[in-house]
């Protein structure tokens, strides 16, 4: 059986076009879902064990079942913000097989009785969004959904849900689901206090119950409806069912997206697919979940670990969105910590003090260490700053932002030691890249929500 559940363009060229998608079974899953009850659709997705591909791995069918069906207006929001460092899979799905995501979102819309679907794309996906608009228009014109939708559901009601794209404008935090909802509403893209949760009345888009799902999550749904939960569960291992798209980047010969069943090992991913180390060096470290997840030291045990939601826990790490950044032995781990911390400092939305100030201090002290001016106490200092950030912030960003410091120190203590005891010195004057503008300053202006 072909394993390209999502990257079907590998089997069917031009499947991104509406006509080609339709001729190859496209929108049959939507029709099948509409012939069933909403509960049947949700139960099928629940039974498949499909888990959210946006990072948290929450069971998708369970999320859908939280939406109150007697509420007159619900929403589906597709999270296409894709801003985690090292993540580039949702782009490929939308560029090469957009209708499968659209179809998945429509099936969700039927299941939760939604009035509309909004696809939130990061602003840098300008071209992607415009191509997507054109494909949505084709499917709408064919009468599959929208005001002139010709399909009918099991009760004989016409299916008129419509789909719209919404472009962001450059802000990582808008990938966090409640910040994303604020952003669509035309407010500052800062996270909301929970509860109420997006699925609750008062917590979702325009205060209505809302399902937020990642692009890749929804792109799995048509396959599940067509082939059934039992078939889906045969792919992958344990509670990690189906395939996962691994975004492989850094020091490998063949970087790129690889759609593989859960349970593939790092060794297979890095060598069989990635082609091994780029410059003939040795692999030293892996960030398995972009900048936000704990770093791993490459050992045989790590290389032979199956990639599932559960297996990475034994190294205190996470699979997250599976953005696998690989580094060889030329890399300085303190530089990595600093690099990733700069990302978080730049992207903090500024709402909570521990996150705003914490990322500022971590960055400053890491810069000092890398400039050769670090003291041994600096390592303890940043560890305590980072640990204080974790429990006290409004959204998971605080935890993500502390991870690079905490886990590089835990996993590679000798690298920090070499910098602060003077055995390692800055090679040459390194231009420390500064962002042109700090988001925090803007957030301090009138908030207006």
């Amino acid at each position: 059986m072909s394993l390209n559940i999502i990257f079907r363009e590998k089997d069917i060229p031009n499947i991104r076009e509406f006509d080609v998608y339709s001729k190859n079974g496209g929108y049959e899953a939507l029709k099948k879902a509409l012939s069933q009850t909403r509960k049947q659709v949700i139960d099928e997705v629940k039974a498949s064990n499909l888990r959210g591909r946006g990072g948290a791995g929450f069971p998708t069918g369970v999320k859908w079942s939280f939406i109150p069906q007697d509420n007159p207006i619900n929403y589906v929001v597709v999270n296409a913000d894709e801003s985690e460092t090292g993540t580039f899979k949702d782009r490929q799905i939308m560029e090469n097989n957009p209708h499968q995501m659209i179809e998945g979102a429509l099936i969700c819309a039927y299941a939760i009785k939604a009035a509309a679907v909004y696809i939130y794309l990061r602003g840098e996906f300008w071209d992607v969004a415009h191509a997507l608009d054109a494909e949505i228009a084709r499917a709408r014109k064919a009468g599959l959904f929208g005001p002139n939708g010709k399909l009918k559901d099991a009760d004989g009601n016409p299916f008129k849900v419509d789909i719209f794209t919404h472009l962001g404008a450059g802000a990582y935090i808008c990938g966090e689901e409640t910040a994303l909802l604020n952003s669509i509403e035309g407010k500052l893209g800062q996270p909301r206090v929970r509860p109420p949760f997006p699925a609750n009345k008062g917590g979702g888009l325009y205060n209505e119950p809302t399902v937020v799902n990642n692009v890749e999550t929804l792109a799995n749904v048509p396959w599940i409806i067509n082939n059934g939960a039992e078939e889906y569960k045969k792919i992958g291992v344990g509670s990690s069912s189906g395939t996962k798209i691994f975004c492989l980047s850094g020091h490998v010969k063949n970087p790129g997206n690889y759609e593989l069943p859960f349970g593939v090992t790092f060794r297979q991913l890095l060598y069989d697919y990635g082609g091994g180390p780029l410059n003939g060096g040795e692999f030293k470290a892996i960030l398995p979940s972009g900048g936000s997840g704990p770093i791993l030291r490459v050992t045989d045990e790590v290389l032979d670990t199956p990639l599932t939601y559960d297996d990475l826990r034994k190294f205190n790490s996470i699979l997250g969105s599976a953005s696998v950044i690989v580094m060889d032995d030329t890399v300085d781990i303190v530089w990595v910590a600093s690099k990733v911390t700069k990302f978080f400092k730049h992207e903090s939305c500024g709402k909570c003090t521990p996150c705003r100030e914490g990322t500022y201090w971590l960055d400053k002290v890491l810069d000092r260490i890398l400039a050769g001016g670090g003291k041994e106490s600096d390592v303890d200092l940043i560890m305590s700053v980072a640990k204080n950030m974790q429990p006290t912030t409004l959204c998971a960003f605080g935890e993500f932002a502390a991870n690079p410091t905490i886990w590089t120190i835990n996993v590679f203590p000798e690298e920090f030691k070499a910098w602060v005891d003077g055995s390692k010195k800055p090679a040459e004057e390194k231009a420390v890249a500064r962002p042109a503008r700090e988001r925090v300053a803007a957030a301090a202006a009138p908030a207006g929500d």
Partner: protein
Amino acid sequence: MNTLQEKYADRIETTLAKYPDKRSAVMALLYIAQEEYGWVSPEGIQDVAEVCDMDPTQVKSIAGFYTMYSERPKGRFWLQVCTDLPCALKGAEKFHHDLKEYLGVDEGGTSEDGMFTVEHVMCLAACDKAPLLQCNFHNYEHLDMEKMKVLLDQWRAEVNAQVNKS
């Protein structure tokens, strides 16, 4: 009717029709304002505020929150080079440095002829194609300085051709 309403009536109407609330159109409108004025100028903010029924200070704080709205005039070509970790592992920091040096600009600065503004940005979700940059919202991938010089010449020539025509 303000400038945006006069010149972009169709696009504004399509945008407003997407949402139950006018305010949701603010981000799309800010892009239109930027297109019209070259940056989100005070006139642009005012126009957007009128369309979305918002206070201009609120519109301004939204514009300031996101990095893709330009709060000051920029060169014709806005070169945003990704120097985030995966790209940096593939030489993007050096590429960014060399590009600035070649154009004689500092971070965020604009070349003397007003043509190119260079700044570095975070991950552009195309890390397998490093080094890369986004120029006026389109990606240019697998770059090095040789390829870059060709692109820069090409863009200059396009602008000169336009100027000569008008």
